[in-house]
């Protein structure tokens, strides 16, 4: 299963990652970080295709995705 990192200190809650994810593996949550922004959480990483769009399109360098098991 791919591993997702979300850096809560950098995230500003624009939720572009949630919108661009083609498989809806990320979702918005009720959690609020120290700066008062709603941060996204991983919903179901087993359906993630590791396309890397969330990492590429994040304006604040707050999200990273890594393939852990190579087949």
């Amino acid at each position, binding site marked *: 299963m791919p591993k997702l990192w979300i850096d809560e*200190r*950098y995230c500003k809650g624009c939720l572009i990652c949630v919108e661009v994810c083609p498989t809806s593996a990320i979702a918005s949550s009720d959690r609020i970080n120290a700066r008062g922004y709603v941060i996204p959480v991983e919903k179901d990483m087993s359906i993630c295709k590791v396309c890397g769009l969330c990492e*590429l399109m994040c304006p604040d360098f707050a999200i990273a995705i890594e393939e852990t098991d190579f087949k």
Partner: protein
Amino acid sequence: MLKYLKEEGLMGPRLPLLLCPGCGHGQVLNYTLHAVDRIIKEDKMAKEKLLFISGVGCSSRLTSHYLNFDSGWTIHGRALAVATGALLANPEFRVVVFSGDGDMASIGGNHFIHACRRNMDLTIVCMNNGLYGMTGGQQAPTSPRDMITTTTPYGNPEEAFDLCKMAEVAGANFVARWTTAHPHQVVKTIVKGIRKKGTAFIEILSQCPVHRKANPADMLETFKKMTVPWAKAKEEDKDKIPIGEFCDHDKPDWNASYEKILDQYKS
């Protein structure tokens, strides 16, 4: 990738970025770092050969404040003039100019025309959000007709400035336009632009969710709807914005022409 960027590309302790939530300029910085990373790895280019120059504005804060490369934060609108000087002093530099639309089209318009005309070996990344973001969302030369801004509350009566056509007519070697909703195309184009000899002008339409009062993700959807690749544009698409790579010439750049003249008078 993020680990690499934090260790090599970005000044870690200076993050988070100063930009507003959902700003397209952060995305353009992300795409540029991916492109630069690809260039460094594939071409085995030394990191010291890259030079980032920027002027004043939201977009111009990116290079000097957050990048771990050689960079210059110069006066408003004169980023291209400083980049030209840096290139004349050391033709080995691969200079990337970060600029916004206010910096490039309005106050630095003349520098922009003449840098393209001289065909200096620059890569110009122009982030166009159609207004002056840092000063409060006023009307810019690149604002489209009928757009509501703080200085045109009933709609903009003027026509927008088409920077790509201007760069092409002024004589740039490589001209392209994309939006922040086209990530892979932008990365590919910036890689091509940095490798290209001569002026490579890349305009990237970027969103300003604070002054346009919209959701950033919705603005990305709008970008996809309001643009069309220029090669596939049909009759009914004439109201849409053409995107893509508009021209790709191989004219000699300024340094090559100057070397040629110098060689005639050597010996």
